């Protein structure tokens, strides 16, 4: 192995939009705001004709920490993914916000998009991410005394092993 120091390669700064790193995913634009910049960015996009919140969901990257992110974005365990739609421009844009597991809270979009109420409740139910100032943060899909957040990666699917046996004679004897 060579002993010479390798020249430092500085990654080019990622393209920015509204002060937030922008990347491209299969032809779709993706913005990566921090939690602090999230609400302000969404307000800006709302004024820019992105009037419909098509989808709000989350991903638990516990077992896939090495996913591709633009430079400068700090990867956390959870990501809240918001898909916005501009009807006027016929365009979509996606936001991916990193949320750490020990402080799993993020601002609510309810006041900007009332339609995000049920979607945020689902994220709370399935992942345990809280939305500050959400009008009704309760479980929506699971019974309310359910323990655990099913879509987290450390939550088992709950599969009951089914044992098949075609040895009917043995089953007869066992009965």
């Amino acid at each position, binding site marked *: 192995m060579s002993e010479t120091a390798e020249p430092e390669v500085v990654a080019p700064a990622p393209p920015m939009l509204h002060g937030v790193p922008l990347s491209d*995913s299969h032809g*779709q634009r993706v913005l990566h705001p921090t939690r602090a910049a999230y609400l302000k960015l969404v307000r800006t996009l709302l004024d820019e004709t992105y009037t419909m919140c098509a*989808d709000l969901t989350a991903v638990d990257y516990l077992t*896939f920490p090495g996913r591709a992110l633009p430079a400068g974005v700090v990867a956390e365990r959870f990501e809240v993914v918001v898909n916005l739609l501009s009807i006027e421009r016929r365009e979509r844009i996606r936001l991916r916000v990193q949320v750490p597991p020990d402080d799993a809270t993020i601002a609510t979009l309810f006041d900007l998009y009332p*339609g995000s109420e049920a979607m945020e409740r689902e994220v709370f139910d399935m992942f345990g991410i809280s939305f500050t100032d959400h*009008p009704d943060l*309760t479980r929506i899909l699971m019974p309310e005394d359910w323990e655990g957040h099913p879509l987290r990666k450390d*939550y088992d699917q709950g599969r009951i092993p089914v044992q098949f046996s075609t040895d009917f004679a043995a089953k007869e004897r066992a009965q």
Partner: protein
Amino acid sequence: MTDRAVEDVAVQDILSTIRGGNEPEQGLKPRSELTARELLREVGAVLRMSEAEAAKLGDLPLDPADDQTMIINMGPQHPSTHGVLRLMLELQGETVLRCKPIIGYLHTGMEKQGENLTYMQGGTNVTRMDYLSPLNNELVFSMATEKLLGIDGDIPERAVWMRMLLSELNRMSSHLLFMATNGMDLGAVGMMIYGWREREQVLRFFQKVTGLRMNHNFIRPGGVAADLPAGWRDDVLHLLEMIPPRLEEYDTLMTGQPIWRDRLQGVGVITQAEAIALGATGPILRSTGLEWDLRRDQPYLHYDEMEFDVIVGTYGDAFDRYAIRLNEIRESIRIVHQILDRMPGGDYRIQNKKVTPPPRARIDESMEALIHHFKIFTEGFKVPEGEVYVAIESPRGEIGCYIVSDGSATPYRLHVRAPSFVNIQCLPHMMRGGLVADAVAVISSVDPVLGEVDR
């Protein structure tokens, strides 16, 4: 333990679940427990007005005493709720003041299950979400997978046209079911029989092509699972000739009829701004007058080459939504005529060895084909890392599929943006100020499918 003691324990378990299983926290809270701010926030957010402005609306008694209102529970088992939807209504007399839908009674853990199924098996899972238009679910899942694989531009023409044909026929069968259930909910019980009569013919065609009447798992990443059978043109033509005169019959039975109009016109009104704020898509959004149809505005497959009209309403009420769906059947018939004329020959799935298993006959002849088949169906094919969101127009609105792949053979995260899940949020707004007898009409006009609401 004696048998009786065991049984007693078992009964106690069941009874304790019954006691605990009423979900009071998820239900509608009585007025005495809510602050004025909380009450107004719900209304104000949808109408995009501040709380002060909402307080001045004056269309409903703002602060009736607690003993003047009654909270009733509808469902989850109820003949008119299109599945296991539970509604809690706060009534003052017959007027609905507030409404809260409580869902989750059909939650199946499909998104979690999808993380353990390969992309070839994923269709079986996704198809059972919106079980009235299963081919659309499979289509959006396959399109998302193909985009991640990078083969979305290489799907053979015949496969694309077959997908369009099946998708439009599915739209027809879903809207015919809407006609049937809408009619029955509003009292035209005979509509149930008529709607199912036509739908039966479409399902028989599906059985001929895909092998199953419902939940087909036919549209797979790379194309479709099998070719169209011989004589399919005659079957489709038979459908296209049979249905239009029957739609005229529905017009006679329902559209012009005074009882029908009185029950639906002016019921469940929503404005365009409110619908967009709530994220409603599909016939609900189009009933407000906005011409938003993903087949026209963000076309996929070959819809940009098809000639069809996007039906819009004017008043945003339940009658508009009924009329939109009735005419969307006619538009689908138009599209299917064009597909019949233009269906090309060729492969029905991409000739990419990675995603396409070999033809069944080859398995007997060649060891490589056998291994190839085995690997695809047991291990699955690996999809490169990435994330993608693809949306298409299902009969209920925009259905989207968000897949995150970590490079393995199963999705890392599979999320389906279900149109009914978002459309149900319109229910409180549509029912507010209406009569309790109209609640059923409103739910029926939203046409939710609880399978995709709860997933």
